[in-house]
């Protein structure tokens, strides 16, 4: 900066000198005139050289400064560089959970499971562009004979066009509900994720496509995009999977996804008042992909959610509702099978937690009341053929999260089911996230 100023001063002096010199030229003889012109010419060359040098130094400084600051952004003269934590362009992450579920009335079904272990990385190419990646393994062992699955949960590039505006492309999580984008075990209460955000919203739900993210100064974050969607042609009426989670059974996860019909989504989340989050999302798109002999169908899922954390309290509420259109013709071909396609499915929950601190340890007792219905309504296909709507399942969960630190949590809870009380169970879990 000082260097630039001195350069500009020199330049100014040159111009002043030039301006002063010009009147003298009129009275000078030819030799003197030539000498002065030569002198001015030399001085002009010197100025040009200095300007070129300054320009080069400036450009070099800007180019060299960028990666330096990308790795050491604390290099302002008095930022606490030495005190600052390290930073790298590539960050390795992980989260996972080991769960133990013991049904109280059917202890023979007790299971312990490494539910999921995820390794992720984030790499920053430049100050505006980064790549996020997560590789997940479920149920510990994956082979033809074992129950495990290996999945790419996220693989997207984010490019920031302005401080509050970014574009993402790739396989990313759909911004819906409270858990889908923040699904690490340290982020929610209870050993298991709540049923609404499992059976109705198929967390962890991701699609391939593009999205834009805008953060308005008021605390409002808007997201919208175009992505792959569900594939109703995958519906397996012989399995109960569709009854456990209608959308979970027909999601595609960018695995050779049928992509003739694309979906769109939009989400708005307001965090302008400290401790408060109020948001909503909608996702809709065709789900039949031009399959021959299949009536066009559309899947739509929307939700409303809120979270309020005054002091040590943590309150949350959510409602989600999904619809699948034109299912009558589809279901007519499936009559006789156990699981037909629902026209409507929905669920909601309310939850309260109180976070206590004991030094670095945290203990949060919580309670959650939820209901969900994966077959709330079926399109009519004729008397005696139309499935009866399923009853709402109501679940009460109460227990506590014990935070060893910000990254490790031990959880214990009890769950009571109104419709299928045989599912009442005790859960114990260990989770980590870093």
């Amino acid at each position: 900066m000082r260097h630039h100023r001195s350069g500009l001063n020199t330049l100014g002096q040159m111009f002043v000198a030039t301006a002063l010199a010009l009147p003298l030229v009129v009275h000078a003889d030819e030799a003197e005139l030539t000498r002065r012109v030569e002198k001015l010419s030399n001085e002009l060359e010197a100025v040009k050289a200095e300007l070129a040098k300054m320009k080069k130094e400036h450009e070099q400084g800007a180019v060299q400064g960028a990666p330096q600051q990308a790795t050491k952004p604390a290099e302002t003269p008095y930022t606490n560089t030495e005190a600052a934590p390290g930073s790298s362009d590539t960050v390795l992450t992980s989260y996972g959970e080991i769960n133990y579920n013991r049904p109280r009335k059917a202890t023979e079904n007790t299971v312990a499971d490494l539910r999921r272990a995820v390794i992720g990385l984030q790499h920053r190419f430049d100050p505006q562009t980064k790549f996020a990646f997560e590789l997940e393994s479920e149920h510990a062992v994956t082979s033809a004979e074992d129950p495990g699955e290996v999945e790419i949960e996220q693989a997207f590039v984010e490019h920031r066009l302005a401080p509050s505006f970014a574009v993402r492309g790739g396989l990313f999580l759909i911004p819906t509900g409270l858990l889908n984008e923040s699904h690490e075990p340290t982020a929610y209460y209870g050993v298991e994720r709540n049923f609404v955000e499992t059976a109705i919203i198929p967390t962890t739900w991701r699609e391939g496509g593009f999205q834009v993210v805008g953060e308005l100064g008021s605390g409002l974050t808007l997201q919208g995009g175009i992505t792959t969607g569900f594939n109703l042609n995958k519906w397996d009426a012989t399995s109960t999977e569709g009854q456990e989670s209608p959308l979970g059974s027909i999601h595609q996860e960018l695995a050779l996804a049928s992509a003739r019909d694309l979906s769109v989504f939009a989400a708005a989340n307001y965090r302008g008042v400290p401790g408060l989050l109020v948001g909503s999302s909608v996702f809709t798109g065709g789900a039949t992909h031009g399959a021959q002999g299949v009536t066009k169908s559309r899947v739509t899922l929307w939700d409303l959610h809120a979270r309020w954390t005054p002091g040590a309290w943590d309150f949350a509420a959510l409602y989600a509702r999904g619809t699948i259109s034109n299912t009558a013709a589809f279901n007519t071909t499936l009559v006789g099978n156990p699981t037909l396609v629902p026209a409507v499915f929905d669920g909601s929950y309310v939850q309260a937690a109180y976070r206590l601190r004991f030094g670095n340890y945290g203990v949060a007792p919580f309670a959650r009341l939820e209901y969900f219905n994966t077959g709330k309504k079926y399109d009519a296909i004729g008397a005696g053929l139309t499935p009866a709507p399923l009853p709402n399942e109501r679940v009460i969960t109460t227990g506590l999260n014990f935070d060893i630190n910000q990254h490790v949590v031990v959880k214990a809870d009890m769950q009571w089911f109104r419709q299928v009380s045989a599912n009442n169970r005790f859960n114990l879990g260990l989770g980590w996230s870093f």
Partner: protein
Amino acid sequence: MRIEVLPIVLGALPASVWAVDYVSASEAEALMFPQADEFATVNLRLDNAQLQEVGKRAGLPARSAQWGVRVARRASSPLGYVVVDNVIGKFELITYAVAVGTDGAIRQIEILSYRESHGGEVRLPAWRKQFVGKTVAGPLRVGDDIANISGATLSCTHVTDGVRRIVAVLQVAHEAGALP
């Protein structure tokens, strides 16, 4: 404690190239102490006893023995201090500045750079206002007197912890006579 005082020309502070910089360090200190006519840097070097004292008061490690503090003055009278620091949010560094009066009370905090994909709401004035007037006596803790931002728990927690550490450093240094 060794102290060096280096007057710095504000205009000499380099502009950062980060696309997510919202305010420069020099702009932040001018914003936080608009009435100041001079800023000077004091490089603190805490000894072991002082480090322990910072850890005790903040409830977390002092992290470093060396801290650069900008002292804001008007007509040679100290108005307060500005400390620019970095903490890790979830994956990336958050650069922030804390302004503290000579009475030890926080005047303002500013987020200079935020690089995470989520949780940029820590920049909102409503969230930052929660710190104003508080001292190391705190509690200055997320989930207590500082409300969390849903989806940005780690960013909120780490910035809050960082602020609590800085006010403890300043208080210990002030008591030791290292700061005016």
